[in-house]
């Protein structure tokens, strides 16, 4: 478990954060022994961790380790896949997201998601951002909501003169910020981001990362990324996932280590983490 991180060219000093001490962290999610299986094959098992308010928490790990599956547990999007079974608990402010009678619509009102490939609706920019409020019945002062969301997503200045234009006429980076604005318009508490910048060029990526810094003042953010440098740049806490093989060779994702980002990248406790962040595998 040596601390030789010379091989890792990660710029932590610029973002070396003093995380608030544990006593001052507020828990938003408490995950207990979570497991997900598709048609009987376990994709993820025995995950337990806590997510803190106004932190950016990153999930990293090799492909197939279940991090996308995991993030989709937070907003019940796994429920759309037939054959997906979730075991364990996710306590959101003390209430189990997978308890009886929990309504996915209520969950998703409070926990929003941005996807890997920007997926604007084939409608105007305005209608994209207004869609969430409209379906949730938040139609008062709709224009203000749209403007506010677009400002928070750092897109307002670029589109304010063409709100009626089609969303598909925007560039990739703008489309992704539009999707973020769309998510913000329903005033969630938590924003989930599944590899939000992996389909974008480096400049657009930087803008998204800057946005994450801005947004975490008001929101709690969980981001899945396959780019370790990105995790080191934006995340306060990082969770490293890996793959174990079962007796018959099935691959299942597990949580290996979860700690402050600076510790994960400079002094990981688990050898597997060290191997991954130094680039020895994955």
């Amino acid at each position, binding site marked *: 478990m040596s601390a030789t991180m010379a091989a890792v060219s990660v710029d932590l000093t610029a973002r070396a954060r003093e995380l608030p001490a*544990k*006593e001052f*962290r*507020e*828990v*938003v999610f408490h995950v207990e022994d979570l497991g997900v299986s598709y048609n009987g094959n376990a994709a993820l098992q025995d995950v337990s961790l*806590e997510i*803190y*308010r106004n932190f950016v928490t990153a999930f990293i790990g090799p492909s197939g380790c279940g991090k996308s599956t995991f993030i989709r547990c937070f907003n019940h999007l796994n429920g759309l896949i037939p054959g997906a079974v979730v075991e364990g608990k996710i306590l*959101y*402010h*003390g*209430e189990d*997201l997978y*308890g009886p*009678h*929990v*309504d996915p*619509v*209520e*969950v998703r009102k*409070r926990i929003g998601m941005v996807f890997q490939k920007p997926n604007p609706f084939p409608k105007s920019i305005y209608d994209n951002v207004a869609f969430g409020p409209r379906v949730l019945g938040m139609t008062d002062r709709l224009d203000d909501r749209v403007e506010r969301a677009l400002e928070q997503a750092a897109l307002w200045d670029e589109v304010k003169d063409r709100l009626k234009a089609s969303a598909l006429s925007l560039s990739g980076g703008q489309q992704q910020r539009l999707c973020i604005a769309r998510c913000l318009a329903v005033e969630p*508490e938590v924003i989930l981001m599944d590899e939000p910048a992996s389909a974008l060029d480096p400049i657009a990526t930087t803008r998204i990362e800057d946005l994450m810094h801005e947004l975490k003042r008001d929101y709690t953010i969980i981001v899945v990324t396959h780019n370790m440098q990105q995790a080191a740049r934006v995340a306060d806490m990082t969770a490293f996932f890996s793959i174990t093989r079962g007796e018959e060779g099935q691959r299942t994702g597990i949580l290996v280590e979860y700690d402050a980002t600076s510790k994960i990248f400079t002094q990981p406790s688990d050898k597997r983490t060290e191997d991954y962040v130094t680039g020895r595998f994955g």
Partner: protein
Amino acid sequence: MATREAAAPQPLRLRASRRRWGEDVVKVVLALCAFVSVATTVGIVVALFVPAIEFFREVSIVDFLTGTEWAPLFEPPSFGVLPLVAGTLLVTVCASFVCIPFGLGGAIYLSEYANRRTRRILKPMLEILAGIPTVVYGYFALTFVTPRLQDIGLPVGVFSALSAGLVMGVMLLPTVASISEDSMAAVPQDLRDGAYALGSTRVQVSTLIVIPAAISGIIASFVLAISRAVGETMIVLIAAGGQPNWTWNPLEAVQTMTAFIAATGQGDVPTGSIEYKTIFAVGATLFVMTFVMNLISIRLVRRFREVYE
């Protein structure tokens, strides 16, 4: 862990505020729409087979299926369906002589010989042939084909199985061509390239490599075309004839099963009479024949899709 629970931003209510019964209503309404198609099938089966069964209580099914005289209105009536079946088959065979070889020929041309632009223009034009209403084809058979047949010296009268069959064959040509061409297009190019590299000619590749590889789709197209020929009504009603005729000579006038149903159904036949029930007996026979052929065709199409997709 000395962390505190974060206070929830608003009153936390993860249950739905009220049961979304609107969603349930929607699902029921949509399922009802889907049910219409089920009801249609049930309706067809009931409409055909209930009166048909009644019919077969009065008329022996053996007489029906083997009798060679169809005269339901005579005294005494004969209910042998073979003349109608023969009429149908005669017209179908004539149609097959046109649509099978030339439909396949068109498909081979489009698939193996035509360049992409030609194919893009020709294929939709072929679809136009399929889109002409059958009553127009019937008119064409009567007013153009029959006189031409007479012109070349064939002893055909106003009505003949041949005239109707030829026109029906052209009408079905796009069916054979389109499905066969899809099937041939699905054959991987590597197979052809391998054969060409060995020095084969295009004729050899088309006939010895591509056709065998696409055979189940091609046969499916034949079966589908034959099934459509059997079920076709207007061309035969207008151009083939209205008298049942137990013959294998295509130059003669015949009445097909479909033409009989149409002719009788148009009349003011009293409900429940034996004559009325003949509509359903013949209809049931027709339905069974086409149903079996459609099953075979669908099965074959599925098989060619599985092999290559």
